[in-house]
């Protein structure tokens, strides 16, 4: 089966910032995204997430499959949106079956 090269952008970010990032993902024209609603972890800011009743430290993971151009734009824009917020973003390669879906 023939496949096409795409990029996968992954973002781990505090929940308070997620709506802004998802908004940007939609505006830039990605064909979709997937969200893992509750992750926890540790980074420069220290422990995040982990089941508190309040939202302050909640963290989500966002995943976007997109063409290389869009993916690189996303990488840069999300990186800018992370200023003052807890979060990371990175990129990797994937192969997909249908070119028109992503």
């Amino acid at each position, binding site marked *: 089966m023939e496949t096409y090269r795409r990029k996968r952008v992954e973002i781990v970010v505090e929940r308070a910032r997620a709506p802004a990032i998802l908004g940007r993902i939609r505006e830039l024209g990605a064909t979709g995204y997937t969200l893992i609603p*509750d992750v926890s972890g540790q980074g420069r800011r220290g422990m995040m997430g982990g089941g*508190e*009743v*309040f*939202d302050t430290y909640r963290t989500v993971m966002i995943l976007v499959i997109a063409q290389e151009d869009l993916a690189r734009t996303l990488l840069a824009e999300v990186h800018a949106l992370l200023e*003052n917020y807890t979060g990371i973003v990175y990129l990797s390669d994937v192969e997909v079956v249908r070119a028109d879906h992503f």
Partner: protein
Amino acid sequence: MSDLLQLGLMNLVSPMVLSFALGFAAAVARSDLDIPEAVGRALAIYLMFAIGFKGGAALAANGAGGGVVAAMLAALLLSAALPFLAYALLRALTRIGPVDAGAVAAHYGSISIVTFVTGSQFVTGQGLGYEGYLVAMMALMETPAIVSGLFLARRALARQDGTAAGPARKKGAFLSPELLREILLNASVVVLVGGFLIGWATGERGMLMVKPFVADIFNGVLCLFLLDMGLVAARQLRSVKALSAPLLAFGLYMPLLGAAAGLGTAWLLGLSLGGATLLAVLAASASYIAVPAAMRLALPQANPAVYVTLSLVITFPFNVVVGIPLYFAAARALGFV
């Protein structure tokens, strides 16, 4: 004095306060005890709905009276004014910057529903009632403080540097629609006000239908929730070392000042002993749910380890364990009946 001690002891030896202590101790000892997050959130919604409903039903039963409008205005003012006091103290007596000071100030002007709920059980345990509209005052006190805190932080920022330093600083963006929604429609305001209105609208007939749920099991559910709060507070302890001694002290004297302001307001409004105690509790309490969420949106530069820790680990336990009986004793000593 021995009377005060006895009150404190009575408060301490209640299943609710001891459940908080149990959770706190378990987390300090690094037990793996854990109330699942989904359940903790649901318990919080239950408590807010039930306290709102009971307040509304009480209002329907006893009638509103003339003082209600004055009380609502007073609640708004109290919440809007306390952050100015808090901010001034923080800037004068601690070394945190204006952004963090504004954020912390917003927390202390706002209120903690769980502290109120614990206080209301204490008051009821003394055989006293309280004005039903105190629940409405609580709801109104949640948000003006946020606006005041943001105003203080941003005025300071604007002074510091003439140039913009953050997306929220653009002209006219002082209260973005996103932020306004967060402030006015956050879950706790909605459930509290909604429960209040439902209790008010359905009155005695409604209360008859749901009393076993909203009233009878309330204390027990509160025990479980405070167990969870104890766990959460103790797990936040690790961040205390980020706080300086003057900042920690602020977490203890600010509630006293708030309570005093609350009692003064209660005196002006002519509240009952129960009502005065609870208004003191509200003014003394600091938010750790609604305000942090707003701050992450509006003041992302401010450090949550400071404001969450201060209100959750210092002020919340202080109020629940020491403050509530203290404010009650003070109200009684001041002649409230």
